[in-house]
């Protein structure tokens, strides 16, 4: 599974994102952060139960700093 999201360009926000990911019961395979002028683009490849991934996505989406988020099932 892959989660793509955009947050405001702030390491504080990034810290909040990581604080959520570290509590999810998933295995993070890869995490890339790319800086733009005003935002960070974050891509996260993870292994885990689909329900757990869904929970993680909705938990991340609770953060106001997460401006956009999408979950892609890379197996399909």
């Amino acid at each position, binding site marked *: 599974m892959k989660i793509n999201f955009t947050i*405001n360009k702030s390491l*504080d926000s990034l*810290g*909040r994102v990581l*604080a*959520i990911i570290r*509590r999810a019961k998933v295995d993070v395979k890869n995490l890339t952060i790319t800086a733009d002028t*005003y*935002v960070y683009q974050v891509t996260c490849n993870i292994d885990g139960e689909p*329900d757990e991934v*869904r*929970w993680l996505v*909705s*938990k991340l*989406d*609770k953060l*106001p*700093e*997460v*401006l*956009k988020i999408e979950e892609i099932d890379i197996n399909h």
Partner: protein
Amino acid sequence: MRYNVGGNFGAHDKRVVDKLVDTLKHLKIKHVFGIPGGSIMTLYDALYGQDIDTMLFRHEQGAIHAAEGYARVSGRPAVVAVTSGPGATNIVTGLADAYMDSNPVVAITGQVATTIFGRDGFQEIDILGIVTPITKFVYQVKKPSEATAALKTAYEISIIGRPGPTLIDLPRDIQLEKAPDFEDRILVNKEKYIPPPPDEDKIREVVKYIVEGVRPVILVGGGVVWSGATGEVLELSKILTAPIVSTLPGKAAVPHDYPLYMGAAGMHGRAEADAALANADVIIAVGTRISDRTWGRFHELRQGIHSGKIKFIHIDIDKSEIGKNVKPTVSVVSDAREALRKIIDMINTIPRYDSRFIKWLHDIRTEYEMVMSKISDSVPGFHPWRALKTIRRATPRNAITVTGVGSHQMWTEIAWEVYTPGTYITSAGLGTMGFCIPASLGAKLAARDKPVLCIDGDGSFQMTMNNLTLVRDYDLPIVIVIFDNRSLQLVKQWQIYLYRRRIIATEFGRRPDFSKIGEAYDIDVAKPETYDELERVIARAFRNNEPLIVDLTIDPEIDIVLPWVKPGEWLTSAMLPEGMSTKLVYED
């Protein structure tokens, strides 16, 4: 003339903090709770002579719990302002409490000047790092042009959708700077908090399950209070003849004299509430996060849903709560009131119901009340169960009741009747001892015309009793009843039953003398000896709108809270008081 401390600008120029105070006024903030210190002095200075009252607490933890109580009663965010370092760390417990119980609190923390950031300056602490997982929004202001926008954003986010605490961190140099005449935008997505309208297809599915069931039960959580959905819950219950069960915060959602309200379920819930939840065939869970404290464990529920024996409907404003612990049969993400209204409007048949089930639940209630009455009569001193009945008689129906954390709180979960929605406030998710006194003060400040009662434990009381001085300082006459068992009784109960009576670190000596504490704060203390006297002193205090501390002696030997679903057990295995023979399993 404005006296500008620091800064290189004219006497009539506004500092960042002056603009912040203008923003607070614009947001109709009437009180700021806290304690000043070096890094937040400038903000306090800007409050000087303004139409906003500063409420000076004796510990920042008191300020933030008071803000929680204030927010709960007023329905609006409350503002706390504290200094950097220890001031900021002292509010961490309150922020966590507000996060767990969805209370809208806006904290403003002072911070060292940006020039010494990250260099371990005096009273520098990375408060953002500390509160990251326990806040809905945090922001460190790094430029003068961000300050007011950050405050407005923090305020708005704290109350939009599911409420929660927010924090802005204000470096000292920025506070002092001249306010620019423009405002930066804080890049956030607030729209996501606007709850979507209930999905029509899902509502149709919900209605189908509801009408097919014969033992529907409505489980209400704190979300029902925030949504103002009490009317809809009662209406649905009447249409379905469905018992209502609540979580601990959900106790405030339903008037307890409604005959189909069975009480709170869970670890120390009522037996009929546990029985209702455990034997329902349709559960409509509204505004609750499906906590282990309410369910004991999830295994049986999950199995029932999986096999189709239970249709579990979960309605919540927060989509991350759906399926977090239990995957529902169907879920609706929306405002509770809106979803319930749609459901009610779509029901067009008279649903069946199992009248024997309802009678069975009522019989459990009757049996419990009889047994407890007998037990209470058989002990020489005060019994918590009967004491609460007595206090309830002496307390006006519209009184706001706040509790501490411990056995006394659990007794209120079981035996305290709430008549007016929103008038029961307790630290449910975090279980924070010390919550009662400050939260009661905040509640009283938000509703001076309402009686406020704090039901506290002697341990919880001692954690925040330093804030009692506010009772006289700001004329906040609250009535406090201390269930004085000279123990950390709830922990002791676990030691007795789960640790083979190996009692360690849960017993207090006879100090302090609470009458002297009362005297120190100029508050009368009563130490009643009979139930009549207890009723009389409390009724008199409320009648005269006078503060009072009641020191209620409880023998810890008899202070065992039952029912009790032991940790990790299922609701039907609740330990019941001696003399109760009912099994909580319904014979269909």
